[in-house]
């Protein structure tokens, strides 16, 4: 309710040490509960009546809100259009808000203006049991130990201890072994790109002709696999590593490749996985040849070997070596020659 008016000194400031008066001098006097001031509604019956009517009014508004929400539920059904769903949700929400806020505001206003506002003091009870009860319980424990014969039968104690100590393994072993899936980190070193894999558009899977890419084009690329394989779960994990961003620059703008000879006639293919924490880097600015990562603004210069020009990434993006096959389609010449994505501790082993 209000401040504790306990006249006795509380336990945590009990004077200790030899000189009790020193600790006592540090204490300030308990100011007690402030003087009770009557409210306007306590003294003026007309004001009390007015507030009573106000509270009734707010409760009635709440009733109207409830009725309104039921009416809105039946009158305005979501008809499948965006606007219909929005209108239905809006009306239901507003009606329910009026209904619940009405109850809450009226109840608080009632408590503040009309209910008693006199301060009451409740003393705390000691939380510990009496000394007799504690002695009895301690004795019971001793008796129980004696009855069970723990002291006389050490094998029994050992076996129960062993059983209890072993049991958590049945939970801990499956839990720990399933953390992190499997521990085969070597799969981060390789993607499904290999010599001769054709490049395909994501998500349609159409093949890409070098001649079709105009200067300034960007294509989001996946390895060419049969359409049914693209429905599998295995594909999703492989795609997550293999995605590539293909950019065609004017060959005069291309200063250098990250991997010697990996580009083809101004067409460069870089891993789309950021070397910082693995977000898909795909914001390509055609005029500056800068490739931005949307997560932490790492910026790579595609014209200059995907060198990091800004942001927290530490390494250039791995480059996929590409060339053109007999039919004019873009094909990979090899897998990436370094692990794609963020650094990890076994990367350089």
């Amino acid at each position, binding site marked *: 309710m209000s401040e504790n008016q306990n006249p006795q000194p509380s336990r945590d400031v009990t004077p200790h040490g030899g000189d009790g008066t020193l600790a006592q001098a540090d204490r300030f006097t308990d100011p007690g509960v402030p003087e009770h001031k009557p409210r306007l509604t306590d003294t003026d019956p007309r004001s009390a009546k007015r507030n009573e009517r106000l509270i009734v009014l707010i409760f009635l508004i709440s009733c109207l809100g409830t009725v309104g929400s039921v009416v809105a539920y039946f009158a305005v059904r979501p008809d499948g259009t965006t606007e219909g769903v929005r209108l239905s949700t809006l009306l239901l929400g507003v009606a329910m808000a009026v209904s619940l806020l009405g109850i809450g505001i009226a109840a608080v206003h009632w408590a503040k203006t009309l209910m008693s506002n006199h301060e009451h003091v409740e003393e705390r009870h000691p939380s510990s049991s009496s000394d007799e009860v504690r002695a009895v319980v301690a004795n019971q424990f001793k008796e129980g130990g004696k009855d069970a014969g723990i002291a006389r039968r050490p094998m029994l104690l050992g076996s129960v201890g062993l059983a209890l100590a072993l049991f958590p393994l049945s939970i801990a072993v499956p839990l720990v072994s399933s953390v992190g899936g499997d521990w085969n980190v070597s799969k981060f070193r390789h993607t499904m790109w290999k010599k001769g894999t054709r490049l395909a558009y994501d*998500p349609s899977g159409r093949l890409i002709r070098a001649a079709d890419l105009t200067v*300034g084009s960007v294509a*989001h690329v996946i390895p060419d696999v049969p359409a049914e394989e693209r429905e599998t779960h295995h594909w999703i994990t492989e795609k997550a590593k293999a995605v590539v961003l293909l950019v065609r620059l004017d060959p005069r703008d291309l200063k250098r490749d990250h991997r010697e000879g990996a580009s083809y006639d101004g067409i460069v293919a870089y891993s789309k996985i950021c070397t910082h924490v693995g977000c898909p880097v795909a914001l390509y600015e055609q005029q500056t040849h800068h490739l931005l990562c949307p997560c932490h603004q790492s910026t790579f210069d595609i014209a200059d070997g995907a060198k990091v020009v800004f942001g927290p990434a530490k390494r250039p993006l791995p480059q996929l070596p590409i060339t053109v096959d007999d039919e004019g389609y873009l094909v990979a010449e090899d897998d990436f020659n370094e692990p794609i994505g963020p650094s990890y501790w076994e990367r350089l082993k």
Partner: protein
Amino acid sequence: MKALAARRHHRSAPVVLLLLALLVTGGVYAALAPSPAKADTASTADIETGKKLFQANCATCHGPNAEGTTEAPSLVGVGAAAVDFQVSTGRMPMQMNGPQAEAKPPQMDEEQTAALAAYVASLGAGPAIPTDEQVDGSLGDAANGMALFRTNCAMCHNAVGAGGALSEGKFAPSLFETSDRNIYQAMLTGPQSMPVFNDANITPEEKRDIVAFIDEQREGSAGGLSLGSLGPVSEGLWAWVVGLGLIIGAAVWIGAKSS
């Protein structure tokens, strides 16, 4: 056949054969060659008007014959679609230098824009202005458009096309107010920072699917106030300032003594 075989040593036989071969080659070429992408309706008068407009409004930066200068790129081969996009959205003629040319009320009316487009298209083949049917979102598949938008566009233009920031003051604009034709043309021509998505990369049907997806986003969110669809920034601001403010206000009111 015999008569033909008998005359194969005739003096004029090589000439006749050569003429026949040329005729066949020309005919096959005419039948099979890809039609050059040009505004078909451009008349010589349009091109003349366009040239005058170009020299008055654009030549300062793009050069008297649109060959480009150190200030601005060459317009030879950019096509009518690029001109229509830049001029009808008011981006060109550019008002002032800045990180990028921003959309503003167009300076040219439709006729002038068409004339300029016809002139630039006459300089070299480039993408033509798409037809109304090509850009009609109601004919497209919005679900496929969403898959394509997510892969190719969402990283810059936001998941629903609300736009987003690039580097050094540049930005990808919101697409809610952009016309279907302009969306299509932007993909086709790759204006400013935006890369090109030509018809081999995203086919005309797929472009229309993307337009259909954007059209659906214009209706707003069924969930109510979208707060600009900007995600955690605007939503967080709302929750922390407005939401927590209301809760603190209610706590103060409940705790205050009534007088």
